[in-house]
């Protein structure tokens, strides 16, 4: 009952503005797929096109292999969970959940039974006769999920439904959503600007920027092997060093910068394009001596204690701002502000990518 979704060269224009630009992606049946990107990147437009509230200007959308052109939202096998949930405040919980069955002409006894069953699935038994206003944020979330599941959609579309919740509840609902998705086997397409959410829940993530799909891969691949500077910079934190690619050997390249000459992995297909060297803060190591490869002399600036890790900001002697994240082992001593140290990184953990601003 779950179905795959194919976006075949889909574009969408609003007047002169191109919100979605030639997006191609094939989402597998039963997959948890996230579109991740900053606001205004076109991810919500994609969701509205799949659900049928927006027609693509070009290209085709297929759900379960069937072309959806001309199919209105109430004819598509999708269910959308809105960012503000859009529960019906004038109906009790069970009528909300059974609304999709009611409009299909299901009789009242069956509707009620199905609503109770779904309330158990989302772990909210006994709430059937409450009004929406009596529920907490997390409970509303569950009702919205149950309401969407009631119509037995092949594809569930979620538009940042967790963004209004507080941190603890959000983390809890992530696991919950993931669990419901695994139990029901329905294809979930999730829209978010929160990389933590996308990485933690998804089977695959599509990173978007300016209407274009930049990279589609599983979360580890996205984080560890971003294909360009945008993906590298948007997903997680990055240190950036500007320079020129020199000699290349075994996938590694020599990289000349004003801060020194480094060695790092070279992403495929960067020849000629403007590039930067990217290193994650957690791969930056602080040390007293600068003898090893890829080391930069720095002066320690701000130190932010985050609990499980410590963010150390520093300025290279040549002016670049660098950040290192050090795991808090509970006993280690922190460097002093203004201390002269070295930051160095492993050549395998650094990557040379096309510059994000030129992507």
């Amino acid at each position, binding site marked *: 009952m779950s179905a795959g979704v194919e976006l075949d060269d889909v574009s969408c224009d609003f007047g002169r503005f191109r919100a979605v630009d030639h997006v191609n992606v094939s989402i597998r049946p039963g997959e948890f797929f996230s579109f991740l990107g900053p606001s205004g990147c076109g991810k919500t437009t994609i969701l509205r096109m799949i*659900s*049928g*509230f927006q027609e693509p200007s070009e290209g085709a959308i297929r759900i379960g292999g069937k072309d959806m052109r001309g199919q*209105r*939202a*109430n004819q598509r096998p*999708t*269910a*959308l969970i*809105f*960012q*503000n949930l*859009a*529960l*019906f405040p*004038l*109906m009790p919980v069970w009528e909300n959940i059974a*609304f*999709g069955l*009611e*409009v*299909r002409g299901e009789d009242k006894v069956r509707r009620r039974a199905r609503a109770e069953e779904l309330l158990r699935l989302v772990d909210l038994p006994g709430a059937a006769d409450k009004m929406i206003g009596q529920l907490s944020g997390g409970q509303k979330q569950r009702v919205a999920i149950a*309401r*969407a599941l*009631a*119509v037995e959609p092949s594809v569930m579309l979620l538009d940042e439904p967790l963004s209004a919740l507080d941190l603890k509840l959000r983390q809890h609902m992530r696991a919950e959503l993931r669990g419901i998705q695994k139990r029901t086997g329905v294809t979930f397409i999730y829209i978010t600007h929160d990389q933590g959410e996308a990485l933690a829940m998804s089977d695959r993530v599509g990173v978007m920027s300016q209407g274009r799909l930049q990279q589609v891969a599983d979360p580890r691949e996205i984080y560890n092997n971003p294909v360009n500077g945008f993906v590298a910079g948007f997903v997680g934190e990055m240190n950036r060093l500007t320079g020129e690619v020199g000699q290349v050997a075994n996938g590694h390249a020599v990289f000349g910068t004003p801060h020194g000459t480094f060695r790092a992995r070279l992403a495929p297909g960067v020849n000629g394009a403007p590039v930067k060297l990217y290193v994650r803060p957690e791969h930056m190591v602080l040390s007293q001596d600068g003898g090893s490869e890829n080391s930069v002399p720095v002066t320690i600036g701000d130190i932010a204690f985050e609990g499980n890790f410590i963010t150390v900001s520093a300025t290279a002697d040549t002016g670049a701002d660098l950040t290192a994240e050090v795991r808090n082992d509970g006993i280690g001593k922190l460097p002093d502000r203004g201390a002269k140290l070295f930051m160095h990184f492993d050549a395998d953990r650094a990557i040379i990518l096309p510059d994000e601003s030129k992507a």
Partner: protein
Amino acid sequence: MQDLLRRYGATLTGAFVVLTAFWLLALVILPNVTLFESSFRYYLPVVDIGGPKDVYTLANYQKFINNPVETSFLGIPFTMPIHMITFFNTVIFSAIVTVITFVLSYPLAYYLAKMVSPASLPTLILLLFIPLWVSEALRAFAWYIILTFNGPLNSSLVGLGLLDSPIRWQNGVVTAYDAIVIGLVYTYVLFMVFPIYGSIQSLDRNQIEAAEDLGAKWWQTHWRVVLPHAKPGIASGCVMVFMLSAGSLLVPTVLPSTRSNWFTQTIQVLMLESQDWNSGAAYSFLYILLCTVVVTLVMWLFKVKLSDIAK
């Protein structure tokens, strides 16, 4: 009050309070109380006022149930006091006016609130308001001219070949009150459009989309989501249009048929033509009371609370 004193000083605040109190007492409360009191007295020649015949009585109210006449409703003949017949006709046709204005207003209000582009909304609202710049009397006379035997409606219908010969619209084609209903609908339709527009506008568009996404057809979305949300607006629009129609004197006077009679006309005849202010006052208060009863009954029937309307 403290705020007013601080902002405007004692003199100005005092003036505000005195003026407002004067307006309320002398121009609203006192005349109504006087009228209410006089409704319980006989209509007497001046020499008898204050004399032994000037006593309190319910006679003026009892006139409402005097003078039974033969009539029929839906072919069933029965007798009823003549003024009661007028009252029921007024209530029934005011209700019909209310229903017609609702049927006309709801789609328009929905269109204005949810479908029209924000850029063209001010123009459309302006277009709706322009007729209001003309006085109610002129608008009623305009309809008189439109509906008259040699008027534009007949001549265009005959000219288009839709009618063989002109019709006496004002005598009533369906009922004796056709022209009055048309006039009242035209006069009061905006009192229905704007409350409904306001209540639909406050509906989150996602609610409509959510209903559609869950498979609802357009009428199911309206029935289950839009209408219940708009209920307070619909209720206040209905109450306003009903009360305004039932209380209208101008339209039933300008657009009557030979057989129509509006309750306000009965009161007008009592007060201005018979100069019997006592009975006129009694009829006025009775009318307010009965209309309130009707409105309350209908609100109870549709499960609308007063607090809903106040929203």
